């Protein structure tokens, strides 16, 4: 058979998918590294600074701040339109003119207050915004920090700085703050924010405490986050009377707060983002980004009434340095904001407020801090373009020398310097923004297109696999060549126009062009076989007619893909997938019955006489097969139902109890329960091992003396024992055996590592020597003598007397025999009895694969909590049931007389297989959210932690995608199982005429190498197609719903998990296919050794 075309085609397809995912994710998820340094009081003005003589070395925090206290009223989704007041508007909409207090204050006390539009950076979701206006940075979806598992802000931020200088921060409102700043508040009154329908709980909770707190002296900074307006927007939209009520309420709140303010207190009223006309937010349209900010203080805040130089719009990050300098704390380390100049006095008029910095001083402090951050960041990450970085640096050094010279010489400040400092800060911000805070729609679109074409290509390859294999490989050369050329062309073009190469666009061009070339060629080559053999013609045109789409085998994946577009279904994904699997499984017997294949046909003596062909299967066989099918369906349904009890819970699912099996044994308090759980886990582990060996023995695969058999005999049980011991050791309570603690520690270290090593060794042995065939020469002649005398070995069905060989699968290898018959003349001399009996030849392909999966399963189980052993057992049972259902239905279908020599696996089992992978992703306690990743897996066998990041990351990946890996590696079994379970005389009866009673099983694959290859390719591409379609729809969901409320909570994590799941699955699928090809090579070698003549 042809190995190279299969592998290279699959590799190419996977690569194209990867490029698509890479491009999209690159445009959608922007990654920023977190700088975990904090500013301190000492470092703000110092480094290299030449202080004016006579001034004491500045400790920033000791200087009397401009304001002692501040009140931050955050009104979620306070759009700027809500804040404007237009007295000429006689018939205001419900959201207009409802906050007259702002306008009144601004006009009546112009030097005390201002109202600005306050522009947020996308993503405009509340959590990202809180991060934004406390750290002064531009948060992206993935802020790569030290700690994935917690949502706490690790970067330097205002709240932290307030705490550092001893300001008491009192917080009330949205409980998101409590998660972001755990234990940072002096006093905190969080209220639940999750229920969007609830307009009043949070606001009323705040109002109960706000005024009493303000009157007291127990605070320095008061943060109150109102959610009512936002929730009202989500529920009713802005254009609704409820919004008018809510805004009027807020108007009253602001009035009361202003009345209670003291002279040393600053009031900031602001929205964290805006909203669209439908009340949503999250995206980047101006309606969503433009909130309002209102500054007020009873003492004069601004030097005078608004002038021409007032900013039109205040970016949200600018609040951070402004507040920091007004309250006398250092600017947070990673802030890229710019101080709001109007609140600082122009130089020379410092008289107004005590300790107030002048505009130039404030700008200088700000610029130094930003420059320091830029240097640190560019040392850590390379995502800021180098040339703009160097430009910024030189600009700063020029400005700094100018400023220092000015200070040294005591010159009056030039407005030009202030302007250029401002320009510098603006350009830094713009650079960072360009790098971090923007979706890249072009890249997203390119990724989407590549993925869509990849899915289409996969589908076409699966339909045309036979043609492609016949063409033998040169189908792939032109696309690859074109891809290479296109990639190089784009690279050259980029060098020519931009001066540097952006790898992603080269990859995109390569992938897209190769896909198009492939599709174009496939279109042409499809036309050819249609002309040649007419039977393909009617099939091809009806690919995607609505009639075919309504077939459950395609309808179910379609529903699955559609379900990825709805947040509710993603949240309930575990159950939804189980529902779909169950539906599709039920469909199999119903469909069989519809075709009249489930029950033996009634013998109608009148009618059946003439035109009906006699059934190939006797009624009893049919009944037996249907019985098997229904029994397996029962097993499948049972394991489906039981698997529901292993699910974990998302935080969005209100009334949900996570499975008790998910917590590790060592956490259980009740000893009896612990023992019960342990026994259950060990029993299921034992059953896993036993079932595997039992299955292998049943097909006679445990008789030979090869590496694989050695693995099955010794390594598999030994690993299980290691695993059971490891569980026992790790479950031991630490204080109960004090004198054995060293031993326990050693056990925790050694046992899992021993298991890892054994598994590695086992898999290596399987790879090295995968044959599980035992040859028994009939006439006691040594096996070497075979080569001369026997010209034929024939299979006879018989059961060996030896107990060990208790299921004998004698094999015949028809084609070779025929070739021998032709070549050798002395065939008449030899009698008809078979000279060689080969045990286990019938499952020569599937046995190593099964064993490999079994070993892999144990290895993955090692990374899970102990209780998951039950779930893994269910997984094995479900796999077996699926395989048997597939095999039985294939056998029953062969009744129809549509038997042909190809071994195509229909869509239904492939769809079931891939859905089962997702189902067990959930049933092994995983969820597509970041907090639910089982980090404990990284410490199995490494209780003291790691030094690198590669090993723990791969362990966690293996843990997370365990079911994806198992199902993908085992995928080729779908091809083999109908042959393994074939009923004697059903397919054989037609395939090999006179020898009808022989069971040829998987040897049939060797008889038709071309069909074998094409079926393998088809199976793999079908599986890839279904996985790819899921990734595609999840990508679509992220792209279409990028303004959805839940995008960062549901869709983006789902996309990440789906994409990484696809990566892992496709690699495992390649491993599985490669293993099959390896076995094929070994079988070829084995036959060569057996019959050297035939190899000539």
């Amino acid at each position, binding site marked *: 058979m042809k190995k190279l075309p299969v592998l290279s085609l699959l590799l190419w397809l996977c690569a194209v998918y990867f490029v698509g995912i890479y491009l999209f994710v690159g445009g959608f998820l922007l990654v920023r590294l977190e700088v975990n340094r904090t500013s301190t009081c000492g470092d703000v003005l110092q480094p290299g600074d030449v202080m004016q003589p006579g001034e004491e070395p500045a400790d920033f925090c000791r200087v009397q701040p401009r304001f002692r206290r501040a009140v931050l009223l955050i009104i979620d989704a306070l759009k700027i339109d809500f804040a404007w007041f237009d007295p000429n508007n006689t018939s205001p909409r419900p959201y207009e003119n409802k906050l007259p207090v702002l306008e009144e204050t601004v006009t009546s006390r112009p030097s005390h207050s201002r109202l600005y539009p306050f522009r947020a950076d996308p993503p405009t979701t509340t959590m990202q915004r809180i991060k934004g206006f406390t750290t002064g940075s531009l948060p992206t979806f993935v802020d790569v920090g030290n700690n994935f598992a917690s949502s706490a802000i690790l970067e330097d931020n205002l709240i932290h700085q307030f705490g550092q200088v001893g300001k008491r921060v009192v917080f009330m409102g949205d409980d998101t703050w409590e998660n972001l700043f755990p234990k940072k508040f002096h006093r905190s009154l969080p209220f639940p924010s999750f229920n969007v329908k609830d307009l009043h709980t949070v606001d009323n909770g705040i109002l109960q405490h706000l005024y009493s707190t303000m009157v007291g002296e127990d605070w320095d900074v008061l943060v109150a986050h109102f959610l009512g307006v936002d929730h009202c927007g989500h529920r009713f939209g802005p254009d609704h009377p409820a919004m008018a009520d809510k805004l009027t309420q807020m108007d009253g709140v602001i009035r009361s707060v202003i009345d209670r303010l003291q002279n040393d207190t600053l009031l900031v009223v602001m929205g964290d983002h805006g909203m669209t006309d439908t009340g949503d937010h999250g995206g980047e349209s101006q309606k969503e980004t433009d909130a309002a900010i209102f500054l007020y203080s009873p003492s004069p805040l601004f030097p005078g009434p608004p002038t021409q130089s007032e900013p039109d719009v205040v970016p949200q990050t600018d609040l951070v340095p402004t507040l920091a300098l007004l309250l006398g704390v250092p600017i947070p380390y990673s802030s890229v904001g710019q101080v709001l100049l109007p609140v600082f006095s122009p130089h020379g008029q410092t008289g107004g407020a005590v300790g107030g910095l002048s505009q130039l001083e404030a700008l200088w402090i700000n610029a130094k801090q930003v420059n320091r951050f830029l240097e640190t960041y560019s040392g850590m990450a390379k995502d800021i373009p180098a040339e703009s970085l160097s430009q910024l640096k030189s600009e700063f050094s020029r400005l700094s020398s100018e400023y220092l010279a000015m200070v040294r010489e005591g010159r009056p400040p030039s407005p030009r310097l202030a302007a250029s400092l401002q320009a510098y800060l603006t350009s830094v911000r713009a650079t960072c923004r360009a790098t971090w805070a923007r979706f890249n729609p072009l890249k997203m679109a390119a990724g989407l297109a590549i993925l869509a074409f990849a899915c289409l290509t996969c589908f076409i390859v699966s339909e045309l696999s036979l043609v492609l294999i016949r063409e033998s490989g040169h189908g792939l050369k032109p696309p690859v060549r074109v891809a290479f050329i296109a990639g190089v062309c784009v690279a050259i073009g980029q060098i020519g126009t931009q001066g540097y190469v952006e790898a992603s666009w080269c990859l995109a061009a390569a992938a897209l062009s190769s896909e198009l070339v492939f599709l174009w060629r496939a279109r042409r080559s499809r036309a050819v076989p249609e002309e040649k053999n007419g039977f393909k013609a009617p099939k091809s045109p009806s690919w995607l007619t609505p009639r075919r789409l309504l077939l459950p085998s395609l309808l179910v994946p379609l529903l699955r893909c559609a379900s990825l577009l709805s947040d509710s279904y993603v949240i309930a994904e575990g159950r939804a997938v189980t529902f779909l699997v169950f539906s599709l499984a039920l469909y199999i017997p119903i469909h069989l019955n519809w*075709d009249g294949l489930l*029950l033996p046909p009634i013998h109608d003596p009148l009618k059946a006489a003439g035109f009906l062909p006699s059934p190939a299967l006797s009624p009893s066989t049919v009944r037996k097969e249907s019985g098997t099918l229904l029994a397996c369906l029962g097993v499948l349904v049972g394991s489906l139902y039981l698997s529901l009890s292993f699910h974990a819970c998302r935080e969005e699912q209100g009334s949900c109890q996570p499975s008790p099996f998910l917590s590790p044994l060592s956490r259980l308090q009740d000893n009896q329960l612990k023992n019960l759980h342990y026994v259950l886990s060990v029993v299921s582990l034992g059953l896993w091992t036993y079932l595997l060996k039992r299955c292998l023995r049943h097909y006679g695969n445990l008789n030979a003396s090869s590496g694989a058999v050695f693995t099955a005999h010794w390594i598999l049980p030994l690993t299980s024992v290691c695993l059971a011991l490891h569980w026992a050791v790790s479950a031991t309570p630490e204080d109960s055996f004090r004198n054995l603690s060293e031993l326990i520690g050693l056990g925790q270290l050694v046992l899992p590592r021993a298991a890892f090593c054994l598994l590695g060794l086992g898999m290596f042995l399987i790879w090295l020597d995968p044959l599980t065939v035992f040859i028994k020469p009939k006439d006691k002649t040594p096996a070497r003598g075979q080569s001369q005398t026997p010209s034929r070995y024939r299979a006879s069905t018989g059961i060996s007397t030896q107990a060990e060989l208790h299921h004998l699968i004698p094999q015949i290898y028809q084609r070779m025999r025929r070739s021998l018959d032709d070549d050798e003349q002395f065939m008449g001399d030899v009698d008809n009895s078979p000279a060689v009996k080969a045990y286990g030849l019938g499952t020569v392909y599937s046995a190593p694969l099964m064993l490999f999966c079994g070993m892999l399963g144990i290895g993955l189980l090692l990374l899970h909590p102990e209780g998951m052993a039950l779930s893994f057992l269910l997984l094995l049972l479900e796999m077996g049931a699926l395989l048997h259902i597939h095999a039985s239905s294939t056998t029953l279908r062969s009744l129809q007389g549509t038997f042909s020599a190809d071994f195509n696996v229909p869509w239904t089992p492939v769809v079931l297989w891939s859905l089962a992978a997702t189902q067990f992703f959930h049933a092994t306690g995983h969820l597509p959210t970041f907090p639910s990743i089982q980090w404990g897996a990284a410490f199995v066998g490494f209780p003291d932690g790691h030094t690198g990041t590669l090993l723990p990351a791969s362990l966690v990946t293996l843990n997370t995608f365990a079911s994806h890996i198992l199902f993908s590696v085992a995928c080729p079994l779908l091809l083999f199982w109908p042959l393994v379970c074939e009923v004697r005389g059903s397919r054989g009866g037609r395939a090999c005429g006179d020898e009808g009673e022989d069971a040829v099983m998987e040897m049939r694959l060797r008889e038709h190498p071309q069909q074998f290859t094409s079926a393998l390719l088809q199976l793999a591409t079908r599986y890839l197609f279904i996985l790819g379609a899921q990734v595609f729809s999840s990508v679509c969901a992220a792209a279409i719903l990028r303004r959805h409320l839940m995008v960062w909570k549901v869709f983006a994590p789902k996309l990440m998990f789906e994409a990484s799941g696809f990566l892992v699955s496709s690699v495992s699928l390649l491993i599985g296919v490669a293993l099959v090809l390896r076995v094929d090579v070994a079988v070829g070698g084995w036959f060569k050794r057996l019959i050297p003549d035939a190899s000539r």
Partner: protein
Amino acid sequence: MWDHEIRAMASTHAILAASVFMATVLPAAAVPGFSVYGTHLLWLYSVSGAVTAVSVAIFWLLGITPPAKKHTVGYKLSRLFRSCLYFFLSCLFFHTVVVLYGAPLIESALETFSLSVLLTSLTTLRCLCVLGPNVQAWIRVFSRHGAMSVWDTCLQITVACTLVGAWVGAFPIPLDWDRPWQAWPVSCSLGATIGFLTGLVAAPAWIHFHRKQLTYKCK
């Protein structure tokens, strides 16, 4: 001949649909506070009861029910008894299937069982009426060449429509719309009823338009 049967079928179905309608409307007049969502179980049982009574009566009157082989009272009684047993067993079967589909096992078991009663009265009961208590025949009807008469074809269509309706009815349950009809088992029973009504309309129409292609083996 064809037209006659189709007309009979259409009028039967009209009566059945009317009975579903009456079962919804009449209790609303009789019972205070009756509504499809609020007192869902009551509605459900009233519909199942109405459909059961009406279809038994109609099919008996029309004489579609396969004639008893023996005319002894004992045999008829045993037939009746078997029918009731099958009815109950089918309720249990539907209950199991619905639970396996993901309905809660213990809590709201009553609701689940009521749904299975509805499903039984919409599907199994029709099988009982048309084919008699003979599971083998039921299974055989649901195959491509299994229909032996117009009524069998009609049975296929209505049963399939009802079950698909109930299946589709499960889709809105996970959505976060907070509507009263999303509560278990309202959407499923509504789906089943709507599917049943669709089937009642679709069956005569389909048979009418395919009457040229339909050929039946003699019984």
